[in-house]
């Protein structure tokens, strides 16, 4: 599994790390299943390594001549915003409410550290 530019196998540890980056709480079964399925998919898409892409520019936008799209600096208020805030999963006095955030994402990191053991 080692060697070559890319190691296509995705280990369960990597799966857990990627799941954390994507904020998905996978079950143990999903961790195993995705480890296998992602490895298969990556093995398949690795066929792109066959090609020589030296000097080829990437195509991030297919409309190659479209650039410099702007709008003027004008204010327009949106009349129905009241209903949007009211429809939030949890709100308090016009503010969106979420469980307590500790400074600088500390709880997220420590929670992850706890999970990883």
């Amino acid at each position, binding site marked *: 599994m080692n060697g070559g530019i890319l190691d296509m196998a995705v280990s369960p540890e990597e799966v857990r790390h990627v799941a954390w980056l994507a904020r998905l709480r996978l079950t143990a079964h999903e961790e195993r299943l995705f480890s296998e399925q992602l490895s298969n998919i990556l093995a398949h898409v690795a066929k792109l390594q066959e090609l020589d892409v030296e000097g080829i520019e990437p195509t*991030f936008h297919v409309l190659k001549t479209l650039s410099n799209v702007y709008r003027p600096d004008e204010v327009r208020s*949106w009349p129905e915003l009241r209903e949007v805030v009211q429809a939030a999963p949890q709100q*308090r006095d016009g*503010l969106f*409410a979420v469980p307590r955030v500790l*400074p600088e994402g500390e709880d997220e990191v420590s929670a992850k550290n706890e999970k990883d053991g």
Partner: protein
Amino acid sequence: MADAVEVVIGLEVHVELKTESKIFCACSTRFGSPPNTQVCPICLGHPGTLPVLNLKALELAVRAALALNCKVARYTKFDRKNYFYPDLPKGYQISQYDAPLAEHGWLEFRVDGRMRTARIRRVHLEEDAGKLMHDEVTGETLVDFNRCGVPLIEVVTEPDLRSPREARAFMEELRAVLQYAEVSDCRMQEGSLRCDANISLRPRGATDLGTKAEIKNLNSFRALEKALEYEVARQTRALERGERLVLETRGWDEGRQVTVPLRTKEEAHDYRYFPEPDLVPMTLDPEWVEQIRRSLPELPSQRMARFQAEYGLPAYDAGVIVASRRLADFFEECVRHYPHPKTVSNWVMGQVLGYLNSRGLEPEELNFEPERLAELLRMVDEGVISVSVAREVFEEAVSTGKSPRALVEEKGLEQLSDTGALAAVVRQVIEEHPSPVRDYRRGKVKALGFLMGQVMKKTAGKANPQLARRLLEEALATEREETP
């Protein structure tokens, strides 16, 4: 130890641009509105919404880059910076990564009488996030998205600053330059200017940077300076004890005046940057950029030079006045109405700044027209009031908003400059205080001060001091001659 070690500081500054509407949607950018009243599906990250760039934000960013002597890119684009946080609706921030708007600039600033230069690594555009508040009662975090989507530029310096004082001086000049360029109000209290610092120590002469600490939560220039001073001490102590420093993020605790660890930099997010597919790239026409450069207002250093040349102000005075755009505008407008620059500059540096500093106000918050100061100074020239009365009138005029002339009339503060009336008072005082008079005539010059005081007392402070002194001296002198 101190001399063998060098302090290395770099700054990351976020500046809110002065546009009417947000960077990618038409919501207002006004500060201070009730929460979530300046939002729409776009800045709230609703499904299906898309960003469109505010041209004015781009213009102001280019202006800022030019004012900081940067090279503006011909080709620039936006990228997505992906991470999860409640103040970030889309789960990514639209920012710039590998093709920023501008690079390789510099800013010259004065510190302790010397000129120093710090290089600007890059200036790029990005969108601001919302604001978090903590509800102590429910234990929840509450989010206001009014600020989300306000256009920002991020200004990153090279680690060229060598002391906390330099860092502060740099920030003060940066603020002045950006205010002058009319790019931002730069008000740290309102959050339109934010600053993080990276600081490390290294052996003098070394080229690597040393292990750095990133300092956040700096709410004022004073906090910046104090936090960096604390860090220099902390890192020095650690090195002296032979401890290994770790790459970390620390926050300034204003209450305890210390920095505290927030998270280690190793745990920093993997932002998974990739080019923003919803926005097309920008190719900036050099002619358009030149036009912006030509339309740049006079910057602080230029204005300072001009104040010295045109008004004959000494460098120090000029430097103090141009530090704030508002103050410099105030000075010039006042001189337009009252063409005695040195007097005006003394008043601006003295009374005006004194007033602002004692109340913790910024020059932008000064509620006093330059014409009013001119009016006040003319009254002193005309002898209507004395200088010390003028100082009181100034304080009153700024607090109440009334015109100096109105106040003087209202309170009957006009000087007594009637020679006849004043001479009568002088004679009275001389009669009533023979002892000090004798002292004076015997050579005790200080007695004059006492007699002046009596004249002022009798006239309730309104005597024109110069006239009163002259009359007093004349009266005492004539009598003096008569003594054998």
